[in-house]
């Protein structure tokens, strides 16, 4: 089970890094893959919080083009 999870993590990391245009050496890809399940678990935890219809903080002001 652990091996298949690791394989899944490596595959996911390889795909995501490639999609981002990053050519990462094998050893460092493996390091990121080792950490990926914990990152995924941490991110998934945010979906368990009841936020109702809350909206993100990013503000879009039509017509404002900055300084």
């Amino acid at each position, binding site marked *: 089970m652990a091996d298949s999870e690791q394989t899944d993590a490596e595959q996911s990391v390889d795909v995501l890094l490639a*999609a*981002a245009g*990053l050519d990462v050496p094998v050893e460092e890809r493996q390091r990121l893959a080792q950490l990926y399940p914990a990152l995924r678990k941490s991110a998934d935890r945010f979906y368990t919080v009841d*936020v109702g219809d809350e909206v*993100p903080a990013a503000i879009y002001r039509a017509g404002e083009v*900055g300084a």
Partner: protein
Amino acid sequence: MSTTTAPWTIETAGAALRAGEVTSVQLVTEAQAAADQLDEQMGTWLARFNETALARAAEADAELAAGNDRGPLHGIPLGIKDIIATDEGPTTAQSLILPPEWGEQGDGPVITRLREAGAVIMGKTTTMEFAIGRPDFSKPFPIPRNPWNLDRWTGGSSSGTGNGVASGQILGGLGTDTGGSVRLPAAYNGISGHKPTFGLVPKSGCVPLGMTYDHIGPMARSAWDCAAMLNVMAGADSTDRTTVERPATDYLAALDLDLSGLTVGVVANASIGQASHEATIAVFDEAVGALAGAGATVTQVEVPLYGELANGAFLALQAEAFAWHRDHLAARWSDYGRPTRLTIAHGALISAGDLVQIERVRQVARRKVVETMDAAGVDVLLSPTTGYAATPFTGADPKALFTKALHTPAWNSTGSPALSVPMGFDPDHLPLGLQIIGRPFADDTVLAVGHQYQQLTDWHVHRAPHHG
């Protein structure tokens, strides 16, 4: 710098300047001598502006002699973290990556304000690469070391400003704080450091890390010194759309606070104790006891969604950093330090939906924190700044390296003001920090509590073994 037992503070140096006991040229000359003596072993500076600093100090002295007093920062030597551009240049972000032309933009609004207040810019201080990661011995940059023990790190990422103040090479300076990078080096080096409310101080002219988590903040010996700097730094600017138009606050005037009318809430979440050394908790309890002894009412407060606020800061800042760095990472992966590139690359592994959800939780949590403080009737929250004192470069207790041992990032998510002040020492005689957290834009209350604590204690003026 000072020949007395207690090192200079901005407050005491300013009083001496006005009493004619010292000149700005003398302060700057002594600071430069301290840097000459200490920099090679301390790793404080990436660039020093000796000639322009001395010229500015001479101008400051002439102005004072002519009766033109610009205020508490007049003639005071300050250091600037090298992710903030200044006219003298260069800016490197302690990286091989940042294009030289980035630093050519010159002073941002905070630097302009400090200069107009009479401050003397001494140079650019060391950081972690792009204000993230840990010391990287493989890159051609100084390794910042702790003046309390050179085998220990300064904390980061505002490392050089932290050890520069603690070792007497500057009286204050600027740091930036995305997950604790003002407060962590303040705690590790035994000085004070304030992360202002998000939107209070403009960030223009600063290399971004996590755009919605970044703050520029003052670092100095005391809360008084930080308040003097914040008086100058605060205020909206059109070049930073996240700044908020508000009536000006006199943070120095607000320091005169009666603790007997105050209620402080000790952050009671179990993760604080679980991720702190028992010696840290003992010192923290003494600090809380000092405030209680001066009349403050103490209560316990469970901060809602505390873990999400802390984890969200780390996840989202990685995504925001990745957005800024993607093209450079793709083109020049190996020119980044390993800790930096791996941390930022995590941002490529977080989905767009994840980031939106983190932001939604952040909004809810921010609201709940204020509601909880209101319900408990507390003016400020308290926690240790970090669970452990400064870590060694090798052989650190793994628990001290966990991100959970940093009790700072939750307050980057909320944008709350948070001050770290020295609260004592661990068994190895390394400094520990007390973190004081307030409601958004209640920076005056936070600084006042820190100042009142420093009227009860003298931890902030202890002299490190390596001091100029």
